Every structure is written in C-alpha cells, then in structure tokens.
C-alpha cells in the first residue's frame, strides 16, 4: 500500500511543491544572499563578495558640518522614521485593539437580544478594502486648508491637520493608530467570540455558587480559559503590525505628511521603496532584519505564555 501510493502522492503534490520552490524557498535563500552581497547590482543581478555593509547603510548616521565646525548627526530614514513608527504602531495598536476586542466579545457573549446584528456590524470592517477605507479615514481626519473633517468637528479641534500636507508626525501617527485599531478589531472579535462560546458553562455556574464577582469571573475564568486564543491573536497581530504598510498608503497616499520627508515611513514601506529605487540589497537587508525580529518576538511570546496558557 505504502509503496504503491508513493509516486502518485508526489504527482498530486507536484504543483504545490514547484510553486513553493520558485516563489517561497528560492526567494527566501536569495533574499538572505542579496542582503549579504557587496555592491549588489540590480541589472546585472550580481555583486562582489560577502559584506555586512548593507545592514550598516540602513542604520548609517552621517555627520554634517554646519560650517562652524559643529557636527550635526543625520540619521538614516530607517533609524529616524521607519523603526520608531513601526514600534509605536506595534506597541500602541496591538494592546489597545486586543483589550477592546476582548471587552466587546465578552459583552457580545453575555447578551442574547440583538446579538446577531451586533456581531455582523463588528465584523464589517474585515470585509473592506484597506486602501479604500484608509481614504475614507483621511477624509474623516481632514483639516487645515482643506476644511475640517468629521474628527475636527466632533472633537472641536478646528484647523488641526492630521493627515494632510504639513501635519506633524505625532498627530499623523494618532490618526494611523485609530485607523489600524478600527481595521484590526473584527478578526480579533471573531476569534475571541468563538473561543468564549467553547468555554464550558459549568465554570460560570461554579463561580455563581461561590458568589464570585464579575471582575473575579473575568480574570479567573474567562481570561485563563481564553488564553490559547489570546496567545494566537497576540502573535498574529504583533506580526501584522510589524508589517504595517497598506494603511499608510491608504491614509496618506505617500510616505510622509511633510513634503520631502518620509516621516510616515514604516519598515515595510522602506523595503518596497528600495525596489523602485533599484537598491534592493538594502531592502533585502531590512527584510532579513524584520524576519529575525519577528522570529524573536514570536519565540519570546511562546516562552512567556508557555507558563500562562492553559491546556
């Protein structure tokens, strides 16, 4: 039986294996190779030996003499914009969206009336086009010479610019985070809700008999029993936020709110820019770094949670 099926199985698998080899495994090796190639030439697709220079260039700080002998440090766009922006997105949007999604799911799980309608509404952002809705948010956050958008009208911040030309990076970042959280909620709610529905009602009955308070029930029953879903959501959303790109394009349409500055750069935005600039060796180096960072983060989360995830 085993022998007989052998070659047939490989025939069934052939399309997948060929496609994976060409579009996943080969690129994986090739990207790492290019990242360590010295003087990589895009047109010739070759370089001259091994180097760490590509990584150094990404982080390079140059010193410019301002005329009077004082040296001013000029940081690369990656150090100055891409890394801080990406970290802000990761450490703001992930916790905020997880907590909001958790509260919404627990709320949804405890009601019966209107539950289906609420569930449908909360899932709607998932079936939208990230670019299209990003453009809607940029109209909502409109300000300055364009007139005031919905945000400025609601919060009485007349004249503030958020995403338009000339908006300061901090405000642009707030708009980006609001949009990212909005877009990230539905998937998390869906996963949490299906996890909540699988929790055995007995636990809650037992808690009732012990007359445990609502907060106690939440922290001692709901969260521990939901821990596999929380871990899964944490890992996927950390990875997702590290790769933020389309939301920036949707919201701003370019890499910055000030002309000439890439102040809304993210790491992935930088990687894509290197392709059009034909400097793929830097993009490859940045991609390798991103991969390593994501791996480390995932490993840490697994290690931390191995003690805290039940089952």
């Amino acid at each position: 039986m085993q022998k007989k099926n052998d070659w047939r199985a490989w025939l069934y698998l052939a399309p997948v294996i060929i496609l994976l080899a060409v579009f996943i495994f080969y690129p994986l090796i090739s990207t790492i190779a290019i990242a360590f190639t010295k003087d990589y030439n895009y047109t010739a697709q070759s370089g001259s030996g091994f180097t760490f220079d590509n990584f150094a260039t990404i982080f390079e700080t140059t010193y410019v003499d301002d005329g009077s002998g004082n040296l001013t440090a000029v940081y690369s766009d990656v150090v100055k914009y891409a890394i801080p922006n990406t970290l802000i997105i990761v450490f703001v949007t992930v916790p905020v969206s997880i907590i909001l999604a958790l509260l919404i799911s627990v709320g949804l799980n405890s009601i019966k009336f209107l539950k289906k309608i609420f569930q449908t509404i909360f899932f709607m952002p998932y079936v939208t086009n990230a670019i299209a809705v990003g453009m809607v948010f940029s109209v909502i956050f409109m300000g300055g010479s364009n007139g005031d958008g919905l945000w400025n009208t609601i919060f009485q911040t007349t004249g503030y610019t958020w995403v338009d030309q000339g908006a300061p990076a901090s405000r642009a970042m707030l708009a980006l985070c609001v949009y990212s959280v909005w877009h990230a909620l539905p998937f998390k709610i869906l996963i949490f809700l299906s996890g909540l529905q699988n929790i055995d009602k007995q636990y809650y009955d037992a808690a009732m008999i012990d007359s445990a308070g609502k907060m106690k029930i939440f922290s001692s029953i709901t969260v521990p029993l939901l821990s596999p879903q929380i871990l899964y959501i944490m890992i996927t959303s950390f990875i997702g936020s590290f790769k933020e790109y389309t939301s920036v394009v949707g919201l701003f349409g370019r890499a910055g709110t000030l002309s000439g500055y890439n102040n809304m750069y993210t790491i992935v935005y930088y990687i894509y820019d290197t392709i059009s600039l034909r400097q793929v060796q830097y993009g490859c180096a940045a991609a390798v770094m991103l991969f390593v960072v994501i791996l480390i983060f995932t490993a840490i989360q697994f290690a931390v949670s191995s003690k805290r995830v039940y089952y």
Partner: protein
Amino acid sequence: MNIFKKIGSSFEKLDKKLSTQPTNVKASYENVETDNLKLVIREGTISIDKMEKIQKVMKVISLIIIYGFLALMAIVVILPFYWMIITSLKTNDEIRATTQTFWPMVVMWSNYANALNKTVFDFPTYLINTLIVGIISTLGTLITTIFAAFAFARLNFKGKDILFMILLATMMIPGEMMVITNYITVANFGWLNDGSLSQLWPSVDGQWFSGARLGAYLAMIVPFWVSVLYIYLLRQNFKQIPNELYLASKVDGKSDWNFLWKVMVPLSSPTLISIFILKLMGAWNSYVWPNLVADDPDFRLITNGLRNAFSVDGNVQYGYQMAATVVVTVPLLLLFIFFRKYIMKGVGRAGIKG
C-alpha cells in the same frame, strides 16, 4: 438548611432563594404563630427581599452598561461607512466646510458619474482586470489545494509528516522576505512591462490583447496559485471524511482520482466555497504586489486604480473620491451579506488552528 424543609412546603421557594445566597445567612423568626408564620432572612442588615431587588437592579445596570458599550462601539465601527456614503453625495464645498453636516444639503448623484469617468477612475478596465486575475488565481489555488490536501489527508508516502511541517513553517515567514526576489524572478521570466513577453506580442493600437498584458496577468496570478493555509484547512476537512467511504470506493474499483472528485470534493464544498470567496476578496483587496508588477494603467487592479487616481495633492475632488470608494466597497459588503456564513466560518477556522 434542612430545618426550613421541615417547616413546610410553602417555604420551598424561599429555600431555593437561600441556596443561591449561601454567605452569612441568618434566619430569625418573628411573631411565631401557627397560622401566621413569617420568615425574615437577613444578611447583615439587608433582608433577602431587598437583596433580590438590589440584584435585579444590578443586573439591569450591567445590561445597560453592556448594551451602551456595544452600541457605542458599533457606532464607531459604522461611522466610517456612513461617512463614506454621505461624503460621496456632497458637493466639494460642503465637504471642505469648517463644520461638517451629517446629511448632504444637496444630494450630488453626479459625483458617481464624474468619478467613474474614464479619465478619473477607469472602473470598467479595473473591474475586468480584477475579475480575470481574481478568478484565475482562485481556480488555480483551488486545484493545487485540492491535490495537495488529498495527498496529505489520504495517501501514504515517505516524508509526508516532514513535508507537511515544512509547509506549515512557511506560514511563519513574512511575505516581505519573498517580495524583492519574486519581483526579480518575474522580471527574469519576462513578465514585466518591458520584458520578453511584450516583445513577443507587441501591443497594437486598439487591440486588447498584448504580450505585456499577458505578462502582467501572469505576474499577478501565478505566484498566488498556492496557499499553505488553505491546504491545511482542506486537509482537516478531508480527514473528517470516514475511511470506510474510501475503502468502499476501492472495493467498487474506483480510482483515487474518481474518489477525490466524486466524493471528497462534493463533501467538502462548504470549505471550498469559503476558500473561493476569501481568495476572491483577497484579489479585490490586493495592492502591494500588483502595484509593483503592473505599472501600466491599463493592467491595474481596482485598488491600485483607486489610490493612484486620487493620490493626495492640492485640490482633490473628495466627493468623486468617496464615490469611487463606495463603488469599490459595496461589492465586498454585498458578498459579505450573501455569504456571511461562509466568510465568517472560513476566517474563524483559519484563526483556530493552534
């Protein structure tokens, strides 16, 4: 507690209430008379009737808080959709006013006509491109997924478990690791605008088909003919189909091929429909890769067309822009309304794999 049961069946009800209030219950008898027995139960200084009332009030309050919170969040979620629709119907002056109105003063249906003008946002072209790319890449994915899932679920071969683990491991790799080299690969295949395919069939004025168009489609389709996640999902589904069916079809002299298409595929149709819809939605929403490989406006997909037609500069006609956004969003919402079950199940199952 047994004392109460002895007093009489009329107290059984009270007894039940007591058992849900187990802490520090003191019972005291007042006016003990044989025909007019009155029982007052206290916890501290609050009698049980009061406690019940408090509990009821607390329940109502917590329900109000829950519904209030959910309603508030629902409004936040819906608001951008509402804003998109009403902005698409406003005049540009109204959109750029200093105070926003929640209903358009003049309903501008003409925004839609103007937005869909070929020179602004070439909707028919983008729609055709998106449908061609979406449907062909979806069908291709379904075929490779069915084959691979069948092999992993039903056939025995050496290295099966290792290969499956390797496949799952690829899901951990961020797509950005592949994108640059894939771009170079596609360029080497001659699929880009100035590649060998476009020289093989040079574009002729007035003719739809050209080598460059074929190349752009291939570049947008072929790399997405494989999805490890969907292989995983379908394999789980195939595994649930009882082995007896497989053995029975063997007894009947049916081949594996026949069994796959006559039994397994029809039985897994809900999962296949989920995959089909999610993949089609993916094509409708894809931006990054098509933006790289299809730089000719004629080959753009809908999302690229949308952002490029209204990229931000001085004087944007926001009404047109939002009208185009509505046109891009509505098909997705319609798909969601009609296939809600399949979409939510598919997304949910993709999530719960840990």
